[in-house]
């Protein structure tokens, strides 16, 4: 085999690897519900269900800054003709500010049910306060689960979230609930 044919073979080989990798399928998202249905059938704790949790009385801890932000969003929502200047990003969507104190972190991102748990989609940025990372994110009305990802590796719950929900695997996700009026519970 001469040099030229080796080069060609190498090219075709790399082409084959790329074609193979590009065609590999991702398992369907229906798998998630199937797994959780089986997990719930195994776990008495899991049978409680998220809906029951939502309907039951819960202790809610709210940070003053978040409360102030939510209150201002609510006020602006009720102010006639000012909707465009409020925390509403668009109809049915509310701007929510997320914060995490992580002085040792090099990067902090936000992953949740609203972005398919992508680690890279939403980056928090360092604020003027030392160690405080923030991001303001448009979220749809409803309930969302989320976690912070520190340095691309450590998944941590929001220590100030009003509620944490078991993910069924011994860890917890933080919960944020946004009402149709734009009021945020966090």
């Amino acid at each position, binding site marked *: 085999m001469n040099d030229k044919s080796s080069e060609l073979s190498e090219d075709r080989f790399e082409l084959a690897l790329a074609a193979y990798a590009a065609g*590999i*399928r991702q398992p369907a998202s229906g*798998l998630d519900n199937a*797994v959780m249905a089986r997990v719930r059938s195994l776990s008495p704790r899991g049978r409680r269900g998220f809906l029951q949790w939502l309907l039951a009385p819960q202790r809610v801890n709210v940070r003053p800054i978040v409360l102030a932000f939510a209150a201002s969003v609510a006020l602006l929502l009720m102010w006639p003709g000012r909707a465009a200047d409020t925390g509403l990003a668009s109809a049915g969507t509310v701007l929510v500010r997320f914060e995490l104190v992580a002085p040792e972190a090099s990067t902090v991102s936000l*992953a949740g049910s609203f972005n*398919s748990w992508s680690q890279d989609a939403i980056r928090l940025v360092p604020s003027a306060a030392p160690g405080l990372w923030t991001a303001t994110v448009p979220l749809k009305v409803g309930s969302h689960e989320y976690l912070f990802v520190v340095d691309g590796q450590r998944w941590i719950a929001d220590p100030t979230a009003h509620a944490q929900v078991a*993910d069924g695997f*011994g860890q917890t996700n933080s919960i944020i609930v946004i009402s149709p009026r734009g009021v945020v519970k966090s």
Partner: protein
Amino acid sequence: MLVERYRIEFGRYATAMVGDQDTAEDALQEAFIRAFQSLQSCREPSRFKHWFFRILTNQCHNARARRRTEPLDQHDTPARERADRPMEQDELGRAIEGALNELTAEQREAFVMKHVDGRSYEEIAELLGAGVDALKMRVYRAREVLRKKLEGLNGA
């Protein structure tokens, strides 16, 4: 949700490891259930991902072993999509899929993580608990096996 997160992160790995999408979904589902049932044995919750990955990999190896004993017509959802690519590329891709059966389990794991998931050697080392040099060697050997197989098929 955790299941969604790890399905997205390890889904294509599972598909490439077992060779078809349906079997990969079964392997993932079994891995999640086994992880749930043996949570007590996860001694470092911060390393849940690595622990789950090992369970999943074992499920994939088991599924592949079972798959080899089943009739071909039971595998009706292939691992690879029909893509809008030139015929030759698609054929080469399919040839790689067939040639993967020639690899050892360790070579296949490392090869898939490198060439399907696109992970760095450092990431692979972290997940597999192996050294970077050893992993480079596994991937190199896997590539050589695949290259020879393809050359044989194409008469190169």
